[in-house]
C-alpha cells in the first residue's frame, strides 16, 4: 500500500503540470514581460518601468479604461435587474416554462460573433429593423454604430440582450431554493407582495445575487468579441475597451511588453473590485 503522497502525485501531476505551464507560468511571465520591450522578432530588451510610465500618459489607454468602466456600468445593473424580474415572472408557475427558458437561452448559446453580426445589421441607421421600429413610435433613431455618441450604448444593449437568459436561469435556481413555507407564514401574517419581496426574497436570494454580480462584473471587464466584430473599437475609439487595446498592442502593433502592462492593469482592476465586493458582502449577503 503506497503512501498518500504517491497517490497524490499521481492524481495531481497532469493537472499540476498543465497548471504550471499554461496558467501560473504565463501569468508570471507576463508580469516579467511588462517590464520589457519586445516585438517577437527582434531580441527582447529590458525597459524597466517605461511601459507603465507610458501607460499613465497614454491618452488612448485612459480612453479605453473609462470605456471599460462605462461598459460595465451600462451592462451589469440593468442586466441584473431585468433578469431578476424575468426570473420572478418565470417562477410564478407559468405554463410553458420550458419554451420560455429555451427562448431566453437562445442568445446565450449563439456564438458572440454571430450575435454581433446580426446586431450590426439591426443597428443600420437607414435600413435596420431597430430604427424602423423606433420610427413607428415616432422616434428618429440615431446613427447607432456609426456615431460616437451611440456606438457604446448600442454595444451595451446587444450585450445585455445576450446575457439576460444566463443570469435569469441563475436567479431562477436561487428563487426555487427559497422554501415556500417562508412565504406562507408571512402571508398568514398579512404581508403584501412588496413586503414579501423585500423581507424574504431579497435576503434569501442574496448568495445567488452575490454570485451573479461578481461573475457579471468580472466578465464585463473582459469583454472583447462583440467590440472586435461590431465596431472594431470605433468610431474614433469610442467603443474600444481594455482587452481590445491589449489585443491590438500584442497582435497588431507587436508591442508585447506594453500589452502585458495593460493586462496587469486589467488584473489589478478586477482584483480590486472583486476584493471590495467580497468585503462588502458581509453587509448584505445572508446564508
Amino acid at each position, binding site marked *: 500500500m*503506497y503512501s*498518500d503522497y504517491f*497517490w*497524490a*502525485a499521481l*492524481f*495531481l501531476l*497532469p*493537472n499540476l503540470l*498543465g*497548471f504550471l505551464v*499554461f*496558467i*501560473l507560468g*504565463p501569468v508570471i511571465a507576463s508580469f516579467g*514581460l511588462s517590464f520589457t520591450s519586445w516585438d*517577437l522578432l527582434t531580441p527582447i530588451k529590458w525597459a524597466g518601468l517605461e511601459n507603465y510610465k507610458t501607460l499613465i500618459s497614454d491618452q488612448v489607454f485612459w480612453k479605453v479604461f473609462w470605456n471599460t468602466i462605462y461598459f460595465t456600468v451600462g451592462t451589469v445593473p440593468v442586466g441584473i435587474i431585468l433578469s431578476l424580474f*424575468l426570473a420572478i*415572472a418565470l417562477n*410564478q*408557475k*407559468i405554463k410553458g416554462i*420550458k419554451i420560455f*427558458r*429555451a427562448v431566453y*437561452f437562445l*442568445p446565450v*448559446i*449563439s*456564438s458572440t*460573433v*454571430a*450575435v454581433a*453580426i*446580426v446586431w450590426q*445589421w*439591426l443597428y443600420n441607421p*437607414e*435600413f435596420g429593423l431597430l430604427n*424602423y421600429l423606433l420610427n413607428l413610435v415616432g422616434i428618429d433613431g440615431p446613427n447607432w454604430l456609426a456615431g460616437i455618441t451611440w456606438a457604446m450604448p448600442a454595444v451595451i444593449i446587444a450585450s445585455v*440582450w445576450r446575457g439576460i437568459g444566463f443570469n435569469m*436561469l*441563475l436567479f431562477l*435556481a436561487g428563487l426555487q431554493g427559497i422554501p415556500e413555507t417562508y412565504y406562507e407564514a408571512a402571508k398568514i401574517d398579512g404581508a403584501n407582495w412588496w413586503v414579501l419581496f423585500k423581507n424574504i426574497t431579497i435576503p434569501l436570494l442574496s*448568495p445567488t445575487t452575490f454570485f451573479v454580480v461578481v461573475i457579471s462584473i468580472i466578465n464585463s471587464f*473582459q469583454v*472583447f*468579441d462583440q467590440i*472586435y*466584430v461590431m465596431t472594431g473599437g470605433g468610431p474614433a475609439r469610442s467603443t474600444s475597451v481594455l*482587452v481590445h487595446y*491589449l*489585443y491590438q498592442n*500584442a497582435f497588431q502593433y507587436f508591442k508585447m511588453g506594453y500589452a*502585458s502592462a495593460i*493586462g*496587469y492593469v*486589467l*488584473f489589478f482592476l478586477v482584483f480590486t473590485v*472583486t476584493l471590495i465586493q467580497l468585503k462588502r458582502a458581509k453587509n448584505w449577503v445572508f446564508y
Partner: protein
Amino acid sequence: MKKKINQRLQIISYVVLTLGAITMVLPFLWMISTSLKSLGEVFVFPPTFFGEEIVWGNYPKVADRFPFGLFFLNSLKISFIVVFVQLFTSALAGFAFARLKFPFRDTLFALYLATLMIPYHITLVPIFVIMRYFGWIDTHYSLIIPSLVSAFGTFLMRQFFLTIPKELEDAARIDGCTPFGIFWRIFLPLSKPALATLGVFIFMGTWNDFIRPLIFINSISKMTIPLGLSAMQGMYSTDWPVLMAGSMISILPVLVVFIFAQEYFVRGITLSGLKG
C-alpha cells in the same frame, strides 16, 4: 382575494415574459428574413419581412467559399477533446485536493484559487510564445493543449468532492481499496451532476471561444465556427443576405443540440449557481 392576486400576478408575469421572449427572438427572425432576400431588396425603407421572392441562393453562396461543415467539425473536435480531458484532469486533481493529504496541499489550492481572478487574456502572449516554440501555431494543438487543465474545473470538483460523506470512503478503505479505486468506483459515479455541470460550461466556453482562434489560427481549413464567421464578415462586409445566411448556418447546429440537451444545460447552470 389571494386567488385574485395570484391570478393578476400570473397574468402580468405572462405578459412580461412574452414581451421579453419576443425581444429575444426578433433578431433571429430578422436574421432568417434577411438571409432569404436578394441584396437589392435589403436596402429598402420601410423594411419588409419577405422580399419579392425567397432567395435560397445565399446559403450555397456562403458554404461555397467558406467550408462551414469543416468549421463545424473543427469546433466539435476541439470542444469534445477539451471537455473530456479537462473533466478528467479536474476530477483527478479535485480528488487529490479534497481527499488526499500531502504537504502544501492547502497553499497550492489557494494558489489555484488566486489564478481564478486573473483575466486569462494576460496569458495569451506567453502562450503564443510557447506555441511558437513547439511549432503549433496554426494547428489545433494551440487551441487544445493549453485548455486541457483548468483551475476553475479543479475548484468545482474539489468543492463537490468535499460534500461526499467520509463514511463511504472509510468503508472502502477498510475493504482495502486503493485511492484510485475509491476515486473510480465511488466518487466519480456520484459526481455525475457536477461533471455534467462542468462539462456544459467547458463546452460552451470552448465552442464560442473567439479570441484564441483569432490569434492562433490562420488557415481556413483549421478555423472554428466563430473565427470562420468573422472571416466571412471580413469578406462580405455589407452583403447582408450572405452574412445572415452564414450566421444562420453557424447557429443552427448549436440550436439543434440545445433543443435536445436543454435539460442538461439548464441543470448545469442552476447547479453551478447553487454551489456558488
